[in-house]
């Protein structure tokens, strides 16, 4: 990985919440990673592992308690607007405005993300053609099927042409065909040179899609590397077995295999 190409950089990132019943909760506990263009970086973890919190810090919705993160060189804490301008964020909780048409939705998100106004119409036209959504672009989103909404939603995420895309559990709630379509689109975007951060708890998706995988557990990265390097490090073939191996190890001996930054390079 050439560090000069780094699009996303995360260093010793921590996030602590206060919960009335549990006191201070370390949702993210010192994680470090970086991403490059044309890469799908997977965050694999069970529910509550800290995936969404990490991605929310990257998208500046949450502020890190400690550590730093940047997107395209923009610090998430000091340059939140510039950071978001370089991001496309897609998750199950990023729905579309139901009363707008597909076209209005794309135009709105291109403009609000500061895409050059004179190029918006052309860009929207390109997105419409690319995702094959011409037929229903002038229908209100509330009238569309879930598959149609998904396509408009992906187009909404990339309409301002951000170099970094975050997909947080994007296949949650989708049927099999739509989930396959989603994976296909993410691959295409990767091939176009986008940096993609993909979070999921579904092993098969991560296995198929991600160039590098970070196994996240209790806010810490237990292992990070390509699927092949993780296989070599554990002598296990399936990602599910690899995941269980690291989690069991971490649960058995708290902190074992975890470096000072909380990162364990499986390839070492």
């Amino acid at each position, binding site marked *: 990985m050439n560090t000069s190409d780094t699009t996303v950089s995360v260093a010793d990132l921590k996030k602590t919440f206060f919960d009335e019943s549990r006191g201070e909760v370390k949702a993210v506990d010192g994680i470090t990673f970086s991403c490059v263009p044309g890469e799908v970086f997977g965050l694999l973890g069970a529910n509550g592992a800290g995936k969404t919190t990490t991605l929310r810090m990257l998208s500046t919705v949450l502020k890190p308690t400690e550590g730093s993160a940047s997107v395209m060189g923009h610090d998430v804490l000091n340059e939140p607007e510039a950071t978001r301008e370089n991001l496309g964020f897609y998750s199950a909780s990023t729905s579309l*405005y139901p009363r707008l048409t597909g076209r209005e939705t794309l135009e*709105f998100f291109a403009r609000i993300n500061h895409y050059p106004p004179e190029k918006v119409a052309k860009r929207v036209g390109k997105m419409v053609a690319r995702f094959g959504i011409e037929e229903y672009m002038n229908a209100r989103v509330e009238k569309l099927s879930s598959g149609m909404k998904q396509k408009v939603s992906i187009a909404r995420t990339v309409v301002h042409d951000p170099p970094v895309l975050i997909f947080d559990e994007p296949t949650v709630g989708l049927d099999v065909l739509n989930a396959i379509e989603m994976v296909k689109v993410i691959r295409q975007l990767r091939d176009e040179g986008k940096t993609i951060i993909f979070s999921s708890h579904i092993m098969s998706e991560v296995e198929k899609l991600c160039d590098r995988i970070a196994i996240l557990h209790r806010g810490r990265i237990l292992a990070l590397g390509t699927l092949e390097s993780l296989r070599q490090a554990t002598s296990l073939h399936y990602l599910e077995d690899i995941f269980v191996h690291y989690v069991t190890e971490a649960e058995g001996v708290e902190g074992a295999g975890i470096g000072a930054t909380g990162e364990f390079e499986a390839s070492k």
Partner: protein
Amino acid sequence: MEIRSALRERSIVVYSILLPIFMYPILLWVVFSAMTFVQGLNEGFVSRIAVVAELPEGHAALIDSLEARENVELTREADTDSAVDRIQAGELDALISFLDAEEDGSALPGNFRVEVRYDRSEGRSRTASERVGQTVDEYRSDWLEREAEAMGVGEAERVLFVLTSENVSTSEDLGALFMGIITPLFLTIMVAMGAFYPSVDTTAGERERSTWETTITTSASRASMVTAKYLYVATMGVTAGVLNVLAMFVSIGAVLAPILSGSDEISVRIPFLAVPVMMVGAVGLALMLSAAMMILASFARTFKDGQAMVQPVYFVAILVPLLLGQQTDRTLTAGIAAVPVANVAMMVRDAINGIFLWPFIVEALAVNLIMVVLCLALARFIMRFEDFLIGSFDGSFWRFAKDRMRPRSIGKEPA
């Protein structure tokens, strides 16, 4: 884009645009038609009145005058108890008994007392009682006149210490009084209603539809998001207020004038200068209510919760002009001008009455603007809290205000 989206939502169009336009014409037409209808009903029906016992000698004319009334049907009853039962059953409206005069009155030969039994809970029965009372009053007056003349007492000696009163107010004054009571109330209702749905729609509605995170992950700054949302809600509130004022003026000419054309008691004319003052008042009120409603609704996770959280503002806003409506002799003062909602309500009423207290009007508008600035600053402050931003804060504005006074609170884990 928010406004375009809002104009496709039926409830927002109805409450923020259609209702403010059509409320006055429809309401005025309904009210006056209902009043005329009820008046016709009261005057039209025949009171069924029964009489028990005989009249004292020499007073048969009293019965004659009752029978002579077109709206009275007189019957004889032998038994008081059964007649009372019939009144309670709704078969009779009133029962008249002639009894002996009491104490000092008994000294006069032939004097008697008229007892009317009726059911106060029934409108028909109350009217019957009033008709009997009127007839007896007229009979007494005629009798006294005749007796006095027979004794040689002339009218000049008989009519003493008479109280007369004359209403010097013009029909325009009475019209202004009427409009001064209803206009601030309706204007407040319309502005509050105009801002109500958009304020909930753009905050709690966004959370419910899961579009909030879509919005906050765009590159727009938090300040511009708050401002844009506020401008949307305020625009709808202002639209409702301005349309309401315009609709009122149109209604006065097109609906109220024909209805009142036969009446010389009330005439509605509003000073031309009142229009801009009312418009400015409506705008100030809309800006203030929009900000307050938006802040409260932003803590809700669902549209329904949002409505529940905003309703107190709505009710308080309506209550203020309702209470001020009772104080018809008050005008805008420095004190009232400092009270949001009350200041605009009073300012509007004064304007309708042709009273323009400019220093206090300026004060009232300044107070509203200060409230708006404070509300927006508060909204921006609230947006700094992550648990609010990601929707994991579970509580109302009041709980939020209380919790944030505790320094250890950092936030809650996202759902």
